[in-house]
Each structure stands twice: as structure tokens, then as C-alpha cells.
């Protein structure tokens, strides 16, 4: 009922709906969103910069803390990149353990997302319900890795801890629990009338736009783009799983429309997929070592001899994470580049904000499952504390300079 035609609305960086600091500047007319601008950078911690000062092993723990929610994805991609550069062959058992950990994490991440999405639309009971289910997988992860979150289990050339046979029952129990609870949870989440009211036909990302804006992960899959790194560029145990294919809303009998509800379907169904994958890995777990080199010092000195570059791609719960590392006879990488899924998906927000109301903003934002923590590339702070924004020309100039510096 404002008397002005449009008015600005700033959401963030400290907004209760988003646990992460990011600022959205909207132009609103009545309750309708007209334009949107996103201001990133509040969580920029210069991870890539720090990484260049550290050795290969330390970086693992730094990368885990790019984002604590899918904290295995970044180290995984990093390990894959370094292993590629150094031509290290990971033992098969380690590959399977990596897969199990990765899928357990996907499980917890998707459950977490469902809860957060429910919270965004004010359905706190569902939020508490999914998070309560999620405790089980966290317990399982804690037992296997020693920590609930930020597991610290990956290392270059394998994993740091074996899943010893006495841990099998724990894992099996977890799987049984989820097989047991899945069907009911699926009904509760997807069949709720008020959830459908809030999620259907909201925040639509069409198939074309999903392609054009390079959406990744469940966001892309919900728009009908069968894009999944686990299938397209399989690593770890994925090449052995023949039945693996990207989840699509079609699995739930719904033509992909790319709305929030589709993303919800994809994630919920991926929960089941993850359980199946873990089950597969447990049944086919190879014997053998879990690490090529358990001593960190030795591993560092091995890597110090390497010159080369490597790329690691991994399907994080939110989509593709890729790391690019240059090794150049140093204790750590000469250069490290991180590309996180929100980096791609964040741009699709602009399309999703077409035709939404204020009330939809949180759920639309949440629908790509952002974790801004690893998309925050840079903030520019000059010595006087005065901020300025860099233009693309500036960035180009800077990157040319940097490339020259590195290249020589």
C-alpha cells in the first residue's frame, strides 16, 4: 500500500532467512519483485590466497572450511586435481570410502536443505523433522571420521581412516534407518498441500536458461538438464555403478518445469539415490590399503618434486565443484583456483526472480541451495577502508598482470 510506485528493499547481509551474509537489493512494487541486484563478498576470506602460503596437507583443512556444509567436496576436488598432476593412483578401497563419505555428505546436505527450505516458507515442523532425521547420518559420519562436520578424512592419495569391519554395522544401521524412513519422509515433504502451494510455479528456470546460464547440480537437473559430474566424468567408485543416472523430476512423474518444487523433488530423490550408492559401495567394497602414503611429510616431499597441473571435478550436493592446481616444485601449489557450484547457479537467480513476490524471495534464493561461503571471490578494500567496485576492465587488467607474473 505504499504510495510510491516502487521502493528499494535490502535483504541481508544479516537476515534471518539466510544463514550466510550476502546482500540482495531489490526493487519492489507492492509485493512484487521488479529488479534484483546481488552484493557478494561479505564472506570473502581469500582462501586461494592463503592456500598459496600453505603446504599440500594443510590446504586440505583450509578447503574443508571453504564451506562446512559439503565440507568433503572441495578437498575431494583438490585431491583429484593434485593426484592428476602428480599422477598418483588412489587405491580402490580408498576410492570406495571416498564415495561413501561423499554420499553420506550428500545425504546430510540434502536433508539439511529440505529443512532450510521448509523453514523459509515457515514450516518449522518439517524443518525440525528433517533435521532430526539428519542427526543419524551425522552420527554415522562422526563415528567413521571422528567429527560431525568438517570430517578431515580425505588426504592426497587416499583417505586417512579406513572403514574397519567393526564400523560396518554402524553404516548398515544408518542405511536401514534411511531406507525405512525415506518413503514416509518423501510423502511428508512432497505431498504437503501448503508446500505445493508455495513451491509450484515459483522461481522458474527454464530449460533454455538453465543451459544458457550454465546451471549445475540439482538446479540444472530440475530444469531438465541431465547434468551430473558423477555420470559425465565419473571418479572414485562411480565408474563401477552402472545404473547411476542423473535424477530428474520425471522420476516423480512430473514434467521438469524448473520451479522450486522440481528442485525439491530432485533433491529428495537424490537422497534415495545416495542410499543406494552407499549400499552398492558397501556390498562391493574392495580390500586393500586406503592410502598410498600415510606419512604427511613424505607425501609433501613427493609432491614437491612434481611440476604440472591438474583439474579435479566433483559433484558436490549443490553441483559441480572444480579445482585447478599448478604444482611447481613447492611445498604447496603455485596456484589454486576454485570454482564452486553457487558460482554458476547464483547467476540463475536473476532469471528466477522474474515474477515473484517478496514472500518467495527466501525460498527462491534457497532453492539453488546456495552456500555463499565459497562463491565469494573478492572484496576490494583499500588501505583507507574505502571500498570500490572493480569493473570487468580492471579485472581483466589484473588477471593479465597476474598471468604474466606466474607465467614467467
Amino acid at each position, binding site marked *: 500500500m505504499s504510495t510510491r510506485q516502487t521502493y528499494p528493499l535490502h535483504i541481508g547481509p544479516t537476515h534471518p532467512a539466510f544463514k*550466510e551474509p550476502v546482500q540482495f537489493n531489490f526493487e519492489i512494487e507492492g509485493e512484487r519483485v521488479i529488479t534484483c541486484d546481488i552484493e557478494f563478498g561479505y564472506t570473502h576470506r581469500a582462501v586461494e590466497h592463503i592456500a598459496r602460503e600453505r603446504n599440500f596437507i594443510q590446504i586440505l583443512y583450509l578447503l574443508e572450511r571453504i564451506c562446512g556444509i559439503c565440507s568433503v567436496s572441495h578437498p575431494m576436488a583438490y585431491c583429484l586435481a593434485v593426484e592428476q598432476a602428480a599422477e598418483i593412483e588412489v587405491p580402490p578401497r580408498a576410492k570406495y570410502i571416498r564415495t561413501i563419505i561423499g554420499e553420506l555428505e550428500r545425504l546430510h546436505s540434502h536433508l539439511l536443505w529440505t529443512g532450510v527450505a521448509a523453514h523459509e516458507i515457515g514450516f518449522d515442523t518439517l524443518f525440525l523433522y528433517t533435521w*532430526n532425521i539428519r542427526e543419524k547420518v551425522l552420527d554415522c559420519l562422526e563415528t567413521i571420521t571422528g567429527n560431525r562436520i568438517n570430517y578431515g578424512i580425505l588426504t592426497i592419495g587416499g583417505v586417512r581412516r579406513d572403514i574397519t569391519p567393526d564400523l560396518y554395522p554402524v553404516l548398515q544401521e544408518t542405511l536401514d534407518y534411511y531406507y525405512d524412513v525415506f518413503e514416509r519422509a518423501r510423502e511428508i515433504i512432497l505431498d504437503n498441500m501448503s508446500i505445493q502451494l508455495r513451491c509450484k510455479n515459483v522461481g522458474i528456470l527454464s530449460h533454455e536458461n538453465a543451459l544458457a546460464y550454465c546451471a549445475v547440480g540439482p538446479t540444472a537437473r530440475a530444469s531438465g538438464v541431465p547434468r551430473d559430474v558423477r555420470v559425465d566424468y565419473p571418479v572414485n567408485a562411480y565408474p563401477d555403478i552402472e545404473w547411476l543416472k542423473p535424477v530428474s523430476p520425471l522420476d516423480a512423474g512430473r514434467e521438469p518445469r524448473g520451479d522450486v518444487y522440481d528442485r525439491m523433488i530432485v533433491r529428495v530423490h537424490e537422497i534415495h539415490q545416495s542410499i543406494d550408492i552407499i549400499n552398492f559401495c558397501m556390498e562391493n567394497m574392495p580390500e586393500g590399503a586406503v592410502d598410498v602414503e600415510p606419512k604427511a611429510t613424505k607425501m609433501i616431499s613427493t609432491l614437491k618434486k612434481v611440476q604440472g597441473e591438474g583439474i579435479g571435478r566433483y559433484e558436490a550436493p549443490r553441483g559441480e565443484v572444480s579445482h585447478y592446481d599448478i604444482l611447481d616444485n613447492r611445498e604447496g601449489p603455485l596456484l589454486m583456483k576454485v570454482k564452486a557450484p553457487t558460482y554458476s547457479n547464483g547467476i540463475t537467480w536473476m532469471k528466477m526472480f522474474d515474477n515473484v513476490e517478496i514472500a518467495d524471495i527466501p525460498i527462491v534464493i534457497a532453492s539453488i541451495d546456495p552456500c555463499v561461503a565459497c562463491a565469494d571471490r573478492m572484496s576490494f578494500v583499500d588501505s583507507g577502508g574505502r571500498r570500490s567496485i572493480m569493473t570487468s576492465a580492471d579485472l581483466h587488467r589484473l588477471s593479465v598482470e597476474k598471468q604474466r607474473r606466474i607465467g614467467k
Partner: protein
Amino acid sequence: MIRKKISLKNLKRSLWAFHLNTGSCNACDIEILATLMPRYDAERFGIKLVGTPRHADVLLVTGTVTEKIKDKVLRVYEQVPEPKLVIVIGGCGSTKGVFQESYAMAGPIDNFIPVDVFIPGCPPRPEAIVYGIAKAWEKIEESEKRNGAAS
């Protein structure tokens, strides 16, 4: 750090928290939420998350403060009405943790605002957060005693 001599007594049974992420890795944040989940149910202590600093009694700060968010942190802190407590959750908030050499960090938090309780861990388990809250109660009790002795 109790700055004014306002009675904190009633804070003990009703602690409304505003969660402030100042550039954390989200792990601590989700553990805060987990603390409110049925398993740990912090609400049985009268703790609830509120949506605006105006309603808050305690700031739960996670993450070491990035340069860009520094001002917002101060502003949020000022918006919280007295008496207020600040609890820092996670190692990186207390001491920058794993991000020691970052140029983008203005933290740790106690450089800007007075902190009452530190909860280390990366991230701390929900029980550790509950324990940290118990520590905050202890602080409240102590201040009560001091107030009682003074008057």
C-alpha cells in the same frame, strides 16, 4: 563482560539469540541450528532464535569478521538492547582459526565487540554449544552475585 549494572537475572531463563554470520564456513551456523533441533532442543532452556537484533539478548557470532562485514557487525551489536551477551562459536571467530594469514579478515571478533563466552571447536558439537550457554548462565549468576554484594 557486563557493561552496565542492569540485572541479568531474568536472562537466564529466557535467552533470545540472534545469529550473526560474519564470514564463517557455515559449519558452525548449522551446528547452532542443530542445537535447536529435537535432539538437543535448546528451546527447553527458553532459548530461541529471533529474526532481528532488537529482540535479541545474546548474539551468537560465527566466523571471523571479514573486512567487508565489519561495519554491519558493529551496527548489529549496537541494535541489541542492553543487557546483552555475546557468545562466539567456533575457533575461527575466537582466533581466526584456520584463516590466520588472510588479508580479508578484520577479526577476530573480540577486536570489535566485547565477548562473554568463547566456544572453541571447528565446529563445536551442539552439546558443546549447550555447554557454552551454561557458561553464559554462570556468568549471569556471577553478575547477580556481584550486584547482590554491591547493593
